[in-house]
């Protein structure tokens, strides 16, 4: 590294996304690349980036095809950005979008680049379906044989009709065999998260997002796509009574988790523009909020049986300590709602003296947050959660909230598959 210099402030200039929709709905025929390009072109339109060489571009998708190995670079090449903009792919499950923003922010802070775009995209409608693994192994073996006659013979003798069945990606942890919902059902039970509390969080998420759309608050952050103008999962007219009627989908028949208080499979893309103050000012672009710091964590959800989606519980106190802050020093909390139960268990863990002492090694619990500051413009339960696109949505949301408030601080917390947590602080 060149002569060590103090890190530079990194600003969130703005974000853009396409409306998120449920799986196999309006974007059924759109690919990751299609959606991501649409989100990036929308960003380029909003911030005058057509033909502009951006310092770096980081993005990713959780579910992607092998042929999409250079997805982010292909998006740049198909977008209005200058083709001289380099790009790289990031993968950290549902933390992909926020992790991409962290990587770009770090490069800017270190003086390696002056501007960058971070984002993500995911489709569960145009998802990769793989060859049956047994068939794939045989085809690879056949490919290694040079003699065509032996090739045909090997294929014929080893092939079984059952191998035609393709492998469809499933939302399942490889090491436990449990889906994310099943894991969270365990967490919900452990932390006594009631059905009523989950439904209430879900209701608030929809109400907050509906209000944000009604007020036009989302309008400068969302580009309509394929005739869709607002998030397809949003149910502005839902009520606690309606939510209470749904049958549980995880945790058996006494379970508390429903299709409403769990995020649905969905499609969408988002992108966020970051830069230095100088870079933004030269172009007359807004400085919405500073990207201050970030922390990632992981838990052993296998042997130690920690909550699969509770890793942010560990990341946040480390981030707070480093920044000499308490959990109450924030004006906004953007906690990703993968499931209402996971969000509520996260909050409960921070309030729990025994957990904070024994697991987090804290003398005092982190305490409660003011719920009125939580996901004030709606969360993933309402907006839906196209995995890698969620980080960009949240960063853009929080930066705009802080800009509107004039000064303040916001906390972002995202849980991810594999027992991981990605958290960050934005300030203004």
């Amino acid at each position, binding site marked *: 590294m060149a002569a060590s210099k103090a890190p530079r402030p990194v600003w969130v200039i703005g974000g853009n996304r396409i409306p998120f929709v449920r799986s196999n709905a309006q974007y059924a*025929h759109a690919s990751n690349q299609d959606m991501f390009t*649409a989100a990036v072109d929308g960003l380029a339109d909003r911030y005058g980036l057509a033909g502009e060489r951006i310092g770096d571009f980081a993005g990713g998708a959780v579910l992607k095809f092998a042929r999409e190995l250079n997805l982010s670079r292909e998006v740049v090449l*198909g977008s209005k950005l200058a083709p001289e903009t380099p790009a790289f792919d990031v993968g950290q499950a549902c933390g992909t979008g926020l992790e991409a923003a962290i990587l770009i922010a770090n490069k800017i802070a270190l003086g390696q680049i002056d501007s960058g775009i971070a984002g993500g995209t995911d489709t569960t409608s145009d998802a990769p379906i793989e060859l049956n693994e047994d068939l794939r192994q045989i085809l690879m073996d056949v490919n290694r044989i040079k003699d065509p006659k032996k090739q045909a013979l090997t294929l014929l003798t080893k092939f079984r009709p059952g191998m035609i069945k393709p492998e469809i990606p499933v939302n399942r942890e490889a090491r436990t065999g449990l889906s994310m919902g099943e894991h969270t059902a365990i967490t919900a039970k452990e932390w006594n998260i009631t059905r009523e509390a989950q439904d209430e969080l879900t209701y608030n998420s929809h109400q907050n997002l509906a209000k944000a759309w009604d007020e036009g608050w989302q309008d400068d952050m969302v580009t309509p796509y394929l005739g869709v103008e607002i998030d397809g999962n949003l149910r502005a007219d839902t009520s606690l009574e309606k939510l209470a009627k749904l049958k549980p989908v995880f945790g058996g028949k006494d379970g508390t988790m429903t299709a409403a208080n769990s995020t649905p499979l969905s499609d969408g893309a988002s992108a966020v523009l970051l830069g230095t103050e100088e870079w933004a000012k030269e172009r007359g672009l807004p400085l919405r909020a500073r990207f201050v710091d970030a922390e990632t964590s992981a838990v052993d959800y296998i042997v130690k049986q920690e909550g699969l989606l509770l890793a942010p519980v560990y990341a946040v106190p480390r981030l707070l300590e480093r920044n000499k802050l308490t959990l109450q020093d924030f004006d906004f909390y953007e906690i990703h709602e993968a499931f209402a139960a996971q969000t509520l268990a996260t909050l409960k863990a921070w309030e729990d003296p025994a957990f904070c002492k024994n697991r987090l090694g804290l003398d005092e619990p982190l305490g409660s947050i003011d719920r009125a500051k939580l996901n004030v413009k709606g969360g993933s339960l309402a907006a839906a959660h196209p995995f890698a696109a969620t980080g960009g949505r949240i960063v853009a949301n929080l930066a705009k909230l802080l800009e509107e408030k004039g000064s303040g601080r916001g906390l972002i917390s995202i849980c991810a598959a594999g027992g991981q947590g990605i958290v960050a602080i934005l300030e203004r």
Partner: protein
Amino acid sequence: MSNVELKSAPGAGGLYLKAAIGMTPLAGTRKKELPDTVVSLEAQPVDLDRLAAFGRVTEHTLTGSLPPIFFNVLSMPLQLKLMTGDGFPFPVIGLVHVNNKIEQTRKVDAAEPLGLSVRVQDLRPHPKGRQFDVISEARVGDELVSKATSTYLRIGKPSEEAAAEKTEEIDFSALPQIATWSLPGDLGRRYASVSGDRNPIHMHDLTAKAFGFPKAIAHGMWTKARALAAIDNKLPDAFTVDVAFKRPILLPSKVGFHVAEVDDGLNFSVRNAKKGTPHVDGTTRAA
């Protein structure tokens, strides 16, 4: 002037059957002049599934804006309706598409309903016979957003009075090759399924042979669309793209894509990868 106003797009399949039957008109039943009919279709929402399928065959990113050639796909049944109508002087099958120019005034979002109209005009001499223009216009409300001029040649008596039309001299053979595309043997059928243009010369070697081609040939509009997809992010919102169809692409084929940037746009050419002979020469210019 006679107008035909349609409420829904006619099916192109039946019209090709009509076109095939129309190849042997009874002597003296064909008119000598172009009809002044305007065939129009009232505003319709765009079929997004079809747009996605078109994008996959022509390698357009589904950005939510309509690719320039997609307007042609939408107006194709209207063109066929007009050109297979009683008042049309030539059999459709056998006409040679020699030139296509599209003037687009702005980006059009896939969610905007489009009204379409098609007319034919300007029957005039060509060095190899006679030529005329098919004008296809697309409107959002009253606003013209895309105007395509397809020039067709009816091969016949050579005409010496045909004026040299090209004013701009571009050496397309000198454009650098930037990509090689492998066009599969079933490309004609694949494009036919998304465009509705099931002209037998594109569908199968046998049907193409019946019309004098050694093999099935690629749709000229596919070639133009594929070229525009390759330079899509270089195109301004308002522009004109003009191409001349030089030689058919016999399928399967390997072709080179040649392109160079100029002051106000791009010059491009699709050429046989081995021999370098031109298939399509084109220009895009900012409007």
